[in-house]
């Protein structure tokens, strides 16, 4: 199961590439789920999501191991010391990545929230502070309708508290279509990789879809916003790769309170009372319910 792979779609023919990529991503997810289901049928849904994510991490570690072994054995067999030397120089970076993945296994095997859950946690605070009207789950993604400061707010996040990223882009697109485009503002909140020197948990605001998927979800948000001319705002919480996939640091947890206040400010400044707003918390929702 750890050798499972996905072949990327043909890029030199761009027609329908998003549709093909989306199909492959969904087929991969479904296949892994089916394999886990067949292996451990009596385990609960929540535990299964943790196992699926742990398997993908073990798969990544296995791939790194096989690539390093390949170059080492090739270098030895061909007596190519330059190749081995290059590998030796890259080993500190490779080991850093391997240690990060290894450390991430702790979070995924016990269901602790990871740094990437900053988006779902921020919108969770919004749900707690609003007056919830309805909840439904579409495509492993929760849509929570609530009233907040006299605005009709739709919160979109992956269904929790299992390890799940959902399909926020596709669901947001469908929601905008259901509302016939009568949406005044879309806000996306996600974790973003910081540059060296930037502070963990610092916030940055911008325009666009804050989502780091391979493409299908991001383009769905952009298409929905551009079709109906809806302002698309983005808020990101900065962290490095280690912090994004290991247990959420306290700094990031505290940054989610600040991010919530920031979302509140954007809603108040950008919309009038009675407006309709969509707020999407992007990221893995492990440990965060809703």
């Amino acid at each position: 199961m750890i050798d499972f792979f996905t072949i990327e779609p043909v890029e030199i023919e761009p027609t329908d590439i998003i549709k093909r990529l989306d199909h492959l991503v969904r087929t991969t997810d479904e296949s892994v789920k089916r394999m886990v289901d067949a292996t451990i049928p009596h385990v609960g849904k929540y535990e299964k999501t943790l196992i699926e994510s742990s398997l993908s991490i073990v798969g990544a570690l296995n791939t790194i191991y096989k690539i390093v072994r390949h170059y080492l054995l090739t270098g030895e067999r061909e007596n190519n010391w330059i190749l081995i030397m290059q590998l030796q120089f890259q080993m500190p970076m490779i080991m850093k990545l391997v240690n990060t993945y290894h450390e991430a296994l702790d979070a995924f095997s016990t269901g602790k929230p990871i740094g990437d859950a900053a988006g779902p946690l921020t919108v969770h605070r919004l749900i707690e502070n609003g007056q919830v009207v309805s909840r439904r789950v579409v495509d492993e993604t929760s849509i929570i309708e609530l009233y907040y400061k006299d605005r009709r707010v739709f919160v979109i996040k992956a269904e929790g508290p299992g390890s799940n990223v959902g399909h926020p882009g596709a669901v947001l697109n469908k929601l905008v279509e259901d509302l016939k485009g009568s949406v005044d503002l879309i806000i996306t909140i996600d974790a973003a990789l910081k540059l060296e020197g930037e502070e963990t948990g610092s916030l940055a605001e911008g325009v666009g879809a804050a989502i780091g998927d391979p493409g299908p979800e991001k383009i769905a948000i952009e298409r929905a916003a551009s079709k109906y001319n809806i302002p698309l705002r983005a808020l990101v919480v900065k962290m490095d790769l280690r912090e994004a996939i290991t247990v959420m640091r306290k700094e990031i947890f505290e940054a989610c309170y600040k991010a919530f206040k920031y979302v509140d400010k954007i809603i108040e400044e950008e919309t009038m009372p009675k407006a309709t707003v969509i707020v999407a918390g992007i990221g893995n929702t492990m440990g965060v319910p809703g």
Partner: protein
Amino acid sequence: MADGIDAYSLFLIVAIILLIAYLLMDTFTKKPKKKEYITRELLKCVKCGFTVEKEFEPGDFIGLVKDKCPKCGGDLRVEGIYSVEKEKILKPGKP
């Protein structure tokens, strides 16, 4: 210099000795310890707002009602789960 060591060789020997000394020092110098993190969870009373930080237990998630408030008897709910540096955890000290 026809006999003995010429200046170039002397310079090379000194350079090699310095390099070996530097490598030995670098090997035996204590490197900074890797930071150790442990996972904590913040429990908050939904009634009176009393908060307490405890050790994380597998299976817990944010929003889970875990305990009763020692002050007012209200529900103690998991407000957050996060990792903190082991050395930074406040331990109950002597008065």
